[in-house]
Every structure is written in structure tokens, then in C-alpha cells.
């Protein structure tokens, strides 16, 4: 039995301390997932709370067919998507026109230091569609592989790979326009 299995078992038995540990372990993952889809910071905490209450409710049914983190990420993703649907916020499909809009977005003219560039790239990431942001976050920040991301989001593995590649390529093109102005 690994750490997560032991932890899940204690939580299923109603051990509050174990559940608190589980939340501490996965709250960053859940906040990242939800934060990538829900922009309102007031809603973020409420959704994260609902996610963990659902985790607590369902943990006795979890059979470790996947990693605990993937299962929790799945719940977080569904909760966040349901939230935006309830609020009738449109999650736009990704089309070619998005790339044009993204590239046409304003860029500052002055040359940039690398640490400033980091902030700018982060703001560029924020402008990407939620599907791209989720894939980037799970891959780069949560170290999930394609299969795990696919399981968490319900996207086919090929789509995950494609979104990851396309999002990074778009960001690179955008960064190049900034770098070009430095030369």
C-alpha cells in the first residue's frame, strides 16, 4: 500500500487529520485546475471547497485504477466546467481565428529584461483558451503525462499532445515578436 492508498483509506474511515493532510497535499493542484478555468477569485475558493467535499464523499468508492492526483484533478475539472456552464460563461472552441487574435494582441514597444519577459509570458498564457491553459498547467506544473491529462480532462491523448504543442508554439511566436523588438 503506497502513501496515497494509506491516506485515502484513513480518509474513508473518517479521519479528519488524514483528510486535512490530503487537502494540503492536493490543494495546489485543485487551485491550479480551477484557477485556469474560473477567473473570479471569489468563486475559486468556493469551488475548491466543493471539490474536496466531493472527494471526501466519494473516496470510499475510489479503487486506485488511476493515481489519486488524476482522480482529484478530474473532479476539479468537472466542477470548474460545471461552474462556468451554470454561470453561462461560454468556453469558446479553439479555432484558427483564435491564433490570429492572439498574435494581433498589443505588444509593448520597449525592450524587455528577461524577468519582465517572464511576467509577460505569464500574461500571454492567461489569454489562451482554458483548454490550452489546463493542458499546459497539468503538464508543466503538475508533471502529469498525456494519458493522465487525458483522463483528468476527458480529452483524447492526441488532443492533449496537440493542444500542448500548439499552445507552446503560439506562445513562442508571440514571444518572438517581443524579442524581435529588442534587436
Amino acid at each position, binding site marked *: 500500500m503506497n502513501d496515497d492508498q494509506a491516506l485515502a483509506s484513513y480518509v474513508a474511515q473518517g479521519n479528519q487529520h488524514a483528510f486535512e493532510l490530503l487537502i494540503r497535499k492536493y490543494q495546489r493542484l485543485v487551485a491550479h485546475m480551477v484557477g485556469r478555468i474560473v477567473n473570479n477569485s471569489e468563486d*475559486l475558493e468556493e469551488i475548491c471547497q466543493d471539490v474536496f467535499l466531493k472527494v471526501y464523499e466519494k473516496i470510499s468508492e475510489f479503487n486506485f485504477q488511476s493515481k489519486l492526483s488524476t482522480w482529484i484533478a478530474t473532479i476539479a475539472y468537472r466542477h470548474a466546467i460545471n461552474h462556468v456552464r451554470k454561470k453561462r460563461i461560454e468556453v469558446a472552441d479553439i479555432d484558427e481565428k483564435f491564433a490570429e487574435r492572439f498574435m494581433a494582441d498589443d505588444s509593448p514597444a520597449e525592450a524587455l529584461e528577461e524577468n519582465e519577459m517572464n511576467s509577460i509570458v505569464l500574461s500571454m498564457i492567461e489569454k489562451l483558451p482554458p483548454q490550452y491553459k489546463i493542458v499546459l498547467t497539468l503538464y508543466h506544473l503538475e508533471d502529469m503525462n498525456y494519458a493522465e491529462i487525458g483522463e483528468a480532462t476527458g480529452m483524447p491523448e492526441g488532443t492533449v499532445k496537440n493542444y500542448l504543442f500548439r499552445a507552446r508554439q503560439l506562445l513562442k511566436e508571440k514571444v518572438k515578436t517581443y524579442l524581435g523588438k529588442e534587436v
Partner: protein
Amino acid sequence: MNEDELIQQQIENGNVPDGIDADAYRLVFRALKTNLKTELPDDFAKRVSSLALAPKKSFDWDKFYLFSGFLALIVALGYAVAATEFAFSMGSFQFLSNYSYFVIFAIVVVALLQWIDKKILKTTNTQF
């Protein structure tokens, strides 16, 4: 494999090639490793775990008090009607009975306006 795929793969393997594309990718990959500012409060874990394990209320006293209050109001109203031999009358609004169709029409129009307003608000999507 096209050039972009190759550079992305090389950077993932820790080999950053030369060139403006590679430089741009290096900055992108670095930013992607930056933690998000979506922090939850320090007491989040404690609060949520307490909430999840809080004993379920066996009896909802709030609903009981609400229902009791409502019942007491009905009883008091009934008693007051009986004690004062109150007879319901439109009083000064008696004249409205001559314009019943107009009143119904006005209610329908107001309700329709409310409904349209709600619909319009709901279809105003925020795209992110």
C-alpha cells in the same frame, strides 16, 4: 517532425539549441514552470476537513422555527378574522373590478418584460 516539434522536444530533454525560436521557447518553458498565484487561504485545509466531518444535523431546527412561525402567523390571522368578524373588501380599489382585463393585461406585460430582461442578461456571455 517539424522544426517546432524538434525544438520543443530538445528543450524538454534539457538541450536548448541556438536561434531566435529556441530563445523564445526557452522563455516560454521557463514561464510555464512558474507557479500560479491561485493560493488558497492558510486555514483552507483545516476548515474544509472540519466541514466535511462535521456531524450531520439530525434535526433541522432552522426549518422547524420557520415552519412554527409561519403556522403561528396563520393561526393568529385566523383568530383575528374570527374575533373581528372581518369581511374582505377591495375598499378603495373596488374601481379596479371595472378594469379587470386592463389589470390582467398590465400584469402580463410586466411579467413579459421581466422575462425578456432576464433572457437578455443570461445570453450576454462573458468570454475568457
